[in-house]
Each structure stands twice: as structure tokens, then as C-alpha cells.
């Protein structure tokens, strides 16, 4: 790892692997998008009405939160490259806080639905018809899987932050930070699709 060109080669290999992993992740969600489109096509009316009930406000706030967090992690990569460890750490802490804020919003949003007895398997939801059951089933499953990715992403970023504090990640070798950044951007990107599909198309 002393040889700088060897480190660079390894970084390239590692980044390439990460990109391939992102392809896999995209197809994982891709399967769900297929299911969503089929059922949206078949239950256009019900999906339309159900989507109207979601809070566009919380959705928009969460979108803004994720977009900002994506830019803070991107900036932290530049900061570490410019050897500004303090700034990099500050930006990463911001990213983590924003990610947590997203989850807190999600918690209140889901909590509202569940208080209104809208959750998969609920008898009251079943009374509203199959379109609504499918819409909310997909809603909980897809945003839930996305939230799981947020949690995994946050765990990665927390580990990376620890490594930066101990100088294991430094201006000479920061591919792990880059990879978590890539992962975080993917999580962000998926939300960019989920947001209009569930909140905006009404």
C-alpha cells in the first residue's frame, strides 16, 4: 500500500466493484418498479385517489433532506482530498444527521397511517378495496426497503467516519469514503423515483 500507483490501482478496482454492486441494487428495486407499474395500470383510479392522501409536504421535505445529504457527502470527499480532515468530518456528521432526520420523518409519516388503520393486513384497509390494498402494500414495502437501505447507508457512513478519525482513511487512500458516497447517491436516486411515483402522480 506504500506505492501510490498501486493504491490507485486498488482504488479503481474497488470502485469498479461498487458500481457493479449498484447495478444489482438497481435491479432489485427494478423488480418492484415493474410490479408497481403493472398494478398502477390495472388500478389507475384507486392508485390516483390513494396517492392524494399521502402528505406531499413530508415527502418534499424528505426529498430536500436527502438531496442535501448527498451533496454533503460528495463535498466531504473533496474535503478529504484537499486534506481538510476537520471539514470532512463535519460534513459527514451533517450527512448522518440528515439521514436520521429522514428516518424520523418517515417514522411520523408511517405512524400517521398506522393510527388510521392503514397498513398491510388491516381490516379497515381491506374494506377500501383491492386497489388501495395494493397501493399501500407497495408503499410500505418499497419505502420500507428504501428506509432499510438508508439505515445500512448510515451504518457505513458511521464506520467511515470512525476510520477518518483514526486516520485509516486519509488523503492518500479514501476509496472507502468514495464507495459509501456512491451507495448514498444510489439511495438518494431511488428516492427520487419513489417520491413522484407515490406522492406526486395524482
Amino acid at each position, binding site marked *: 500500500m506504500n506505492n501510490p500507483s498501486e493504491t490507485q*490501482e486498488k482504488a*479503481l*478496482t*474497488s470502485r*469498479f*466493484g461498487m458500481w*457493479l*454492486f449498484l*447495478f*444489482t*441494487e438497481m*435491479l*432489485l*428495486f*427494478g*423488480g*418492484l418498479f*415493474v*410490479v408497481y407499474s*403493472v*398494478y398502477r395500470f*390495472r*388500478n389507475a383510479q384507486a392508485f390516483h385517489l390513494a396517492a392524494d392522501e399521502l402528505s406531499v409536504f413530508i415527502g418534499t421535505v424528505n426529498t430536500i433532506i436527502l438531496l442535501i445529504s448527498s451533496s454533503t457527502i460528495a463535498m466531504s470527499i473533496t474535503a478529504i482530498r484537499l486534506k481538510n480532515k476537520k471539514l470532512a468530518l463535519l460534513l459527514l456528521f451533517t450527512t448522518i444527521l440528515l439521514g436520521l432526520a429522514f428516518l424520523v420523518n418517515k417514522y411520523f409519516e408511517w405512524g400517521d397511517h398506522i393510527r388510521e388503520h392503514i397498513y*398491510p*393486513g388491516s381490516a379497515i384497509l*381491506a374494506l377500501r*378495496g*383491492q*386497489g388501495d*390494498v*395494493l397501493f399501500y*402494500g*407497495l408503499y*410500505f*414495502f418499497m419505502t420500507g*426497503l428504501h428506509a432499510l437501505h438508508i439505515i445500512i447507508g448510515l451504518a457505513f457512513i458511521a464506520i467511515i467516519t470512525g476510520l477518518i478519525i483514526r486516520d485509516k482513511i486519509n488523503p492518500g487512500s479514501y476509496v472507502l469514503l468514495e464507495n459509501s458516497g456512491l451507495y448514498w447517491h444510489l439511495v438518494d436516486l431511488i428516492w427520487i423515483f419513489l417520491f413522484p411515483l407515490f406522492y406526486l402522480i395524482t
Partner: protein
Amino acid sequence: MNVHEGIEEPSYLEHKGKHRGIFSWIFSTDHKRIGLLYLFSILSFFSIAAIIGLLMKLELIAPGKTIINAQTYNAFFTLHGIVMIFAVVIPGLPAVFGNFFLPIMIGARDVAFPKLNLLSWYLYVTGVTLVVISQFAGDGPPDTGWTFYAPYSFRTAGNMLPAVFGAFVLGFSSILTGLNFLVTIHRLRAPGMTWLKMPLFPWTLYATGWVQLLATPIIGITLLMIAAERLLHIGFFDPTLGGDPLLYQHLFWTYSHPAVYIMILPAMGAISEIISTHSHKGIFGYRFMVASAIAIAFVGYFVWGHHMFTSGMSGTALYAFSLLTFLVAIPSAIKVFNWISTMHKGSIDLQTPFFWAAAFIFVFMVGGFSGLILGSLAANVHLHNTHFVLAHFHFIVFGGTGFAFFGALHYWFPKITGKMFDTRWANVGLVLFFTGFITLYGPMFYLGVKGMPRRYYDYDEIFHAGNIVSTLGALVLISGALIIIINLFNSLKTGSKAPSNPWGGKTLEWTIPSPPPAENFIETPVISKGPYDYR
């Protein structure tokens, strides 16, 4: 061209790492040791699933209940399918021989991510463990068949969740192996090894890697949906909740048809190596072999509908899927043509691996042609869900991948272990195996055409004769397999020492000692010639 002549380097088997005893294996990140971990796990699971297969054949020796009842039979074909497909055939060639030989054949010291490689094996073991747990815990073993078709898969009392999660974890393991190989091939080829100087086995692993990476997540998410359906009552595929069971079939086969190419592509690669080496002649139409591997991987994505011809699809969809199914046969036929042409005017050395390759070509062609019959719409309506389908895919999956696996095992045995195997017993085993195979699956074509359905423990008296022949074949096949495996284990002790290049091969693995040193190459090889340079 043995560059290491005279240099004594401890082999990977003797190499002293950080750990001792069993830990030097299960904590090893050496791609060769991981390959052997897979080899032993896969052989064990293969034996278990094969015994279950034999029990099913014994049940079918006579109409009515013979040794097991209907529910046990359902559980048996489910377990046989899950273990054979997800834990034996899919990882078979890539995880064992791919792990062991991919880095060596492209002149690398290891795969790109050795730790991830070990993690894949752990995931693999975890996945199989979950499947095993599903057999004993809960309300009885799963009985849906390996396809987990909705809506039965969330209605049955059987213990589905561990089986479904097991398959999910196995899929994840397969994705990581594919990812690792793709990065390895892109980044770690030896200096001078351009894409078109790469041997065909790595090439097929490359095509396979993309299929693993891009198709497996679809079944991952589909299995998660089945789990969510059972746990949370989300109505993805439940018609009473508005879901569509047919959509499940589409998603399932979107992965599971490409999965057939995950199974067969590396098999084709290994067969290409064996035929070229034993004919002492470069592979005929190397570029066509590369192109057809890529073409099979690509077209293979668009044929899944042929599993659903009778499930209810539009006429247009039926025609399109049927046409695409015929198209995917073309690159496979190119490969068969090129194998035969490679032998033509070659100097053929009649060794055991070559016999396996020849047997492979025969059974693969029978399997392929019967596939064309199933791909034609009218015939499919008659043959769907009969023993004909069973015969077809056992000819491809067991005949194709299984024969290639045993062929590759004999071909690379001297390199892996440093010992030669006993040729006479190996050939006896092969003859029994081949005879048993044809006797076991051949009659199923006939039974299928006559209308015997699959997945029933009972049948009408008119199918009796064919089933007796088939069960006898199963016994012969198992005895052949036993001889093969016992012979290989015996040869570990009694075999003579293997030279570095016993068959006269030209690819890189034959330039290093048998067994290979821990670091594979003392000096990184520099490639200037094509992979099969016999001139």
C-alpha cells in the same frame, strides 16, 4: 514453457497461513482453498439431493404408494429441486472451478476481492442451512416445488419462510461471486492478455457473471415479496387481495430462465478447454465461441415466457417468446459445431476428461433438441408439465452441467491435488454413469408424450413399464457416481504424482506446478500468444 522448473515453492495445500487445522480452510481467503470449500460443500449437498432423487424414483417403481406417501413425495421433490438448483448446479462450475482456475488462467494471484469471496462461501453455507432448517422446524417441510409458485406458496401450511430466505441468501452469494469474477477479469488480467487472448473458460465466466449480477436481484426481490406476503399479508400475488399470481410467474422466470444459462455457460467453457487440450488443437472458431457465449447470455434474458405458454398470455407474447426461444438455440448450436470441428483433424488423446466431454455433447444435444420441441407452441400445450419437461431439463441441467462438472473434475484433478486418478475405474464409473443416465431419463420422454404428468407420486398402470426402466437406470447411475467419487478419493492416497502438464494443455494453469503454489505465479506471466497456441 514451465517457468518455475527447479524452484521449490510450497503448494497452496502446504502453505502455512495465519491459522491452523480446519481454520486454515474456513478462514482462508486463498481462491484455491475457497474453491475446494465449495467443492466439498457442493459434493455433500449433491449426494443428499441425489439420494432424495433416488428415493423418489423408488417410489415411482410401481403405481400407488410404494415407500413414501404423497405429502412426503411433495416435500422430497421440493427439497431435491431447491438443493440441486440453488445449492449445486448454479454455484457448481463457477464457484468451484471458477474460483480455483479463473485467477490462474488469466495470470492473476487471486480474485479482485478475496475477503468478499470468502463471505460468499459463508452466505452459501448460511443459505443451505436455512433450507435445511425449513425441513425440520415449523409445521412441516415446504411442498411447493422449487418454483414457489403463488398463490400456493403463501397458502400452504409448510414451513416456507426459511426456504424462501435460504434461496434469497444463496442468490446473494451468487451475485457476489459473479461481481468478484467480473471485476477480476476486467482488472487483473496478466500483462499482454487482451480480451481476445483470454481462454474460453474465463470468457464464459465473464458472460455468466453479468447474468448473475443482473438477473439474480429479480428473484431476490420476488422471494422477499413472497416472504412479505406470508408475514405481512401484502397482496402482491394474492388474487383475493387484488394481486396477480401470473405476475409472480413472470418475475420468477425472468430470473430462473437466465439462471439456466448461469448453469450451462461455464459448463460450455470447461468443455471447450477439455476438447481443445485433448485434441491438441486450438479451438475452432475462437471468436465465434466468445460471441456465442455473450449472445446466449443476452438472448437468454428474453425467453422466460416459454415456461408459461399454458399459463395465459396474449398471442403476440406467445409468438415472440417462441421465436426468441428458437433463436437462443443458434449460438448453442454454433458451440456444438465448433467443438466437433475442433476435434476434426486434431490429434485426439482418449483420456477420461475427453470421454466426459464427448458424453456431454451427446446429452446436451438431446436436451437441446427436446427444448426446441417444447419451444414450439402447439407441442408445448401437449407436453407442458409432463415427464417430457422433466426429461428435457434433466438432460440439460444434469446432463449438461453435471457431465461438464465431472469432466472438469477429472480434467483439473491432477492440477488441484497433484495426484493422477486411476483411469480404469474412472472410465468404468463414466460408462455406468452414462448408461444409467440415458436409462433413467430416456424413458421419461416417452412417458411424457404418453401424458404422464410430473410431480405426482402415483400414476396409471399404462405408465408402469417405462417407470420400471427409469428406476433401474437411477440405480445404475448412482452406482456409477459412487465409483467415480470413491475412485477420486482413493487416487488422493494411491495416485502417482501428477506432472505440471499431464494432458499437454496450453492455458496458464498448466505452466505452474501441480498443486499450484500459494501465490500461483512466482513471476507474473507476460502473454504474447493466443490461449490455444498449438502450432
